[in-house]
């Protein structure tokens, strides 16, 4: 699935993390990548589980399951590659099950008691799905004494 050109504000990619469905604006999503090797090495960034190599790029993998569900979600063998967070919104990956689908619909505002990473509620027929704000989700990770990401030569 390649949806990089789809920037319609009403188009979303529905993804499954654990037993839950979430939606991401399709304009942020680059592709659904097949299962590839996760490369892990020592680091202290809580929200990151490692990197994958995709289309000649090294992409960080955010552990969305832990951030959303408080535990690693099982059965997440595929990677949704999207522009996630940070300066320049670099391409990043989040583990998902292979079940992704496109959907269109209107986003309803969320109630104030919802987490900051819920940008809205997508109504699809009788279902409602949380629309993720990935930047807010990643920012919700516990701080481990982050160091400002300095510019690299």
């Amino acid at each position, binding site marked *: 699935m390649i949806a990089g050109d789809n920037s319609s504000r009403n188009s979303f990619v529905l993804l499954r993390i654990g037993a839950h469905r979430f939606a991401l604006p399709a304009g942020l999503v680059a592709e659904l990548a097949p299962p590839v*090797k996760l*490369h892990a*090495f*020592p*680091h*202290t*960034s809580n*929200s*990151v589980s490692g*990197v994958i*190599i995709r289309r*000649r*790029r*090294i*992409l*960080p993998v*955010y552990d969305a399951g832990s951030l959303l569900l408080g535990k690693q979600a099982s059965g997440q063998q595929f990677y949704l590659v999207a522009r*996630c*967070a*940070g*300066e*320049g919104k*670099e*391409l*990043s990956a989040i583990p998902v099950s292979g079940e992704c689908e496109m959907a269109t619909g209107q986003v309803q505002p969320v109630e104030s008691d919802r987490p900051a990473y819920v940008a809205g509620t997508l109504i699809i027929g009788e279902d409602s799905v949380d629309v993720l704000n990935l930047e807010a989700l*990643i920012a919700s990770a516990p701080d*481990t*004494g*982050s*160091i*400002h*990401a*300095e510019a*690299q030569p």
Partner: protein
Amino acid sequence: MSAAGERSDKAGHRGKPEAVILFWVANQMFAIAAESVQEIRSTDGLAGAANEIDQEAVPKVRHILEWGRRTCYVVNAGVHFDLPVTRPTLVLILRRMRIAVLVDRIDRMTEIPAVYPLPRAFVGKERRWYRGLAYIDDSVIPVVEPSGFLSAEEFAALERAIKPGESQREMEGAAQA
């Protein structure tokens, strides 16, 4: 090399080839620029040159090493990277630095086509630990930043910790003379 950092792609260049030493600490392989390593020694061969220091400010340093005309702080890489405890057998004595690094074993020396930037998603201490990432034999290997083994604050803490001992040794030496 079949992988490239985003920044490298955008910049239209992919760095330059570089000789690195691949070494293991616990179950993790690292790379370090060969030119930043002056010598590799067995820990057994350093018995007379290494002295234990009693300080708790920087737990990853338990010894100093008198090497040439330098006094190096010996950093346990396993503690530095928060890896499982192992028994290091080798010491990398870094060039132009007062740092020696305890590692488990050397894998080999090789050439890498480029060092790719650490993704900006990594925001912790690893930004000091690593110069970037290399892709070797289907694996992504962190390329360590030699100066990242000890920060200026850690150097200062170590200097403060060993000064009383050094002063005492100097006094003892003067008394014996």
